[in-house]
């Protein structure tokens, strides 16, 4: 079976129902990858969340996947559109690292922890508290969701792989 890899770039929301599809967030740093999965209907959705709140938006492009508060409802709607049952959806998250630990700067470059908080809170507000997570730390993560099985793999540089 040929694996079809679907990269999920910054602020993007991608989905799939194909048994050979793999949704991938490559190199998550401070961003968060949210994976939604309905095991009964083999529906997978992945979002690459960049910032905690859409009120931070000062640009022109509006991608719902970019902000935690807009990404979660958009991802849920997409899963349901593809035939998932809302109450069966399992959410798992990874990312939110602090990659660049600059001495003396507290708020700067620590969007990671704000992202973790915002994604968790938004998922909970929508009734899909994360079932598993691998967040924080000071290292990057690649997140792969195998749509056929629901397997979710977190890989790192020098820290091995882990299933969520």
């Amino acid at each position: 079976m040929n694996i079809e890899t679907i990269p999920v770039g910054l602020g993007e929301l991608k989905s799939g129902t194909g048994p050979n599809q793999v949704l991938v967030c490559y190199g998550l740093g401070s961003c968060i990858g949210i994976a939604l999965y309905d095991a009964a209907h083999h529906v997978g959705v992945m979002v690459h969340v960049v910032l905690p709140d859409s009120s931070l938006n000062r640009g022109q492009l509006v991608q719902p996947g970019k902000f935690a508060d807009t990404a979660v409802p958009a991802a849920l709607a997409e899963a349901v559109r593809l035939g998932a049952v809302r109450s069966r959806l399992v959410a798992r998250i990874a990312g939110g690292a602090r990659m660049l630990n600059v001495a003396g700067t507290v708020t700067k470059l620590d969007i990671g922890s704000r992202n973790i908080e915002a994604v968790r809170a938004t998922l909970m507000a929508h009734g899909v508290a994360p079932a598993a997570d691998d967040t924080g730390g000071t290292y990057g993560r690649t997140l792969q969701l195998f749509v056929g099985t629901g397997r979710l793999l977190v890989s790192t540089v020098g820290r091995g792989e882990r299933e969520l």
Partner: protein
Amino acid sequence: MNLTQNEYQALYAIVQKGLDNSSKSLSTMTTGGIRLLDPKVEFLPLNVVPGIAGGPAAVVAAVYLGIEGDLNGHLMFLFTLKAAMRVVDMLIEAPGGTTTELDEIGLSALAETGNVCGSAFLNALSDRTGLKIVPTTPVVVTDMAGAILESVVTELYLNGDEVLMVETGFNEEIPGHFLLMPDQDSMARLVAALEAIG
């Protein structure tokens, strides 16, 4: 954001001058082994930035310097691990291939290279524009290029959707990237400074 032809030319000349300064300081440190190539100066949408150094999953050694003062932004050097070890060899004046892992000494040698090279560049930028530019202490990270760049991109996203990217590589022996990314709010001050020169 758009620069006029004159502003662009003024900026390009300053960048080139800055890179000359950096190359000179690198020559002193590495007895001429490392040179910076001609730069590209362009506006890039932020969502493509995590992929510009060999793809988001490429493993790199990065030296990061924050920029503060009149100009706020980020300066970064990204090397493949092999190139990073080659840089360390040059710094400790050892034959190529001597360094086989990036230990504490190697990482601090890289930090120092980034510091000297980055400061030389920023000094030229500061001299020509009259802007006050202060680099932060360097941070060295070895990880996926996407994860490292993403952390800078998220912060730049707070001000807009694109970045003025000054990008250059090193000579063939050292595959790597040198990136300067001022934030959007600094652009007005930069442009005003360029107009004053132009």
